[in-house]
């Protein structure tokens, strides 16, 4: 489904993700964890195609690439725009109806079902601007449901949400996994990861560990991740690792 082959991603030649190799099978529910600045968001951006690798490559199953859904950390969504929650969620159907297609009855039912799944049925006619932070995140999830993607990338979807909302949205994640979708989620709450995510990628620019959650979230590995993430050298020398590997 998704493979990183000696992948380096970064900004201005400074790597944010460094020589990462991993294989993520279809149907995974993978938590991406690590300290701030560990390259978690950068990795998701790279998979979504918003950032060109500085080295190595990202191999995505072509069918999944075509329907990929990506929820950025800070959406630059303009909440002052005069649009209803219903219309916003309906945008999830873009790949099916495009710029000119008509919303058919089946589409309307799916939109209503998606709104119901995130508990926003009563808010369909309200303006997006009247939603609270948690409600807006629920609406973004409803839009994701309609995108019907095989590969879903979520960047800190649970930040600043109350427990109830986190629980509800996690249920949506688990439902997606049962449907055979592949999900990568950046999460900070280790307890939450231990409870719900079967697999885990611990990142500190380099992959510290990747595998079953219980084996990854151990104190020695977490300590190593913290240590690795501390050094960010402005005057860093050119990385020679690739040359060494080839010789």
């Amino acid at each position, binding site marked *: 489904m998704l493979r990183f082959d000696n992948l380096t991603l970064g900004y201005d030649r400074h790597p944010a993700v460094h020589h990462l190799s991993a294989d993520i099978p279809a149907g995974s529910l993978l938590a991406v964890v690590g300290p701030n600045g560990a390259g978690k968001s950068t990795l998701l951006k790279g998979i*979504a195609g*918003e950032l060109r690798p500085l080295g190595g490559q990202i191999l995505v199953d072509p069918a999944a690439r075509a329907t*990929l*859904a*990506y929820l*950025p950390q800070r*959406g*630059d*969504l*303009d909440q002052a*725009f*005069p*649009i*209803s929650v219903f219309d*916003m969620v309906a*945008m999830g159907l*873009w*790949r099916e109806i*495009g*710029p*000119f297609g008509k919303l058919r009855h089946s589409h309307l039912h799916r939109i209503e079902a998606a709104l119901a799944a995130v508990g926003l049925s009563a808010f369909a006619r309200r*303006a997006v601007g009247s939603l609270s932070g948690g409600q807006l995140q629920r609406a973004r999830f409803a*839009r994701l449901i309609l*995108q019907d993607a095989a590969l879903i990338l979520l960047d800190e979807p649970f930040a600043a949400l109350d427990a109830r909302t986190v629980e509800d949205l996690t249920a949506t994640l688990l439902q997606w996994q049962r449907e055979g979708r592949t999900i990568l989620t950046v999460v900070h709450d280790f307890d939450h990861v231990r409870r719900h995510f079967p697999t885990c990628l611990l990142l500190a620019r380099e992959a510290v560990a990747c595998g079953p959650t219980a084996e990854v979230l151990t104190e020695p590995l977490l300590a190593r991740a913290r240590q690795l993430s501390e050094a960010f050298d402005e005057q860093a020398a050119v990385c020679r690792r690739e040359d060494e590997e080839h010789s």
Partner: protein
Amino acid sequence: MIEFFVQPFIDFEFMRRALAGCLALALGATPVGVFLLLRRMSLMGDAMSHAILPGAALGYLAFGLSLGAMTVGGIVAGLVVVLAAGVVTRASVLKEDASIATFYLLSLAAGVMIVSLRGNNLDLLHVLFGSVLGLDDHSLLLIAAIASLTVPALAVLLRPLTLECFDPAFLRGVSRLSPVAHYGFLILVVFNLVAGFHALGTLMAVGIMILPAAAARIWTRSLGALLACAVGIAFASAVAGLLLSFHADVPAGPAIVLMCGLAYLVSLLLAPGGLLAGRLPVRKHLES
């Protein structure tokens, strides 16, 4: 009553022409203004309107007071500034507002210099302030043609443009239409500014775009209502401005824009959520 409101349009052809021109502007330029407002580009519309000046001035310098030359010149200058600003935004650390500002300032200075090289102050006044009461057949046809192009173009662009304003990152994720929506829209802005400058001049063409849009935004909550309301306010203000100009013998262009401004100020005062509503006793709240 009828005497006051209708007779000027029955008696004088120039009033009827002005009315037709304003109707076309309200239908074409005002919806474009609504999207300028929603894209938070209100002031950039203003900047763009100055950018078309040197093109119009060059056309004037080469061919005299010729409609075709000034129109083509204005459109070319506007498109050059839009594209140059787009390239600079993508290639440098400057944001879009800064790159448009730099190019329009260059453009405006060049325009004023070109106009003053030849021609007298009256011509400069015509370019800067337009002549809504002096619209000839060609100008009127041009304004109508641009409106006729703008309405279907906006209908085609509506969905991508809405998404581009509301959630550009999402649009980029699901389709490649983001640049189409962005540049298509800016081209419409340039065309409508050129239409507006024949009637209201480069300085005030933006008035009939932004002011009705801002007034309508205060009253409405959906995009459809916003567009309809803005067009209505624009046309009503144009009629009021023309009548004011006729009866009080004041210049028509500024009168129209001032009427748009009056509609905006009244909206600001009276609309729900406006200045006055904040002073009224709070209405009983709902159960949920």
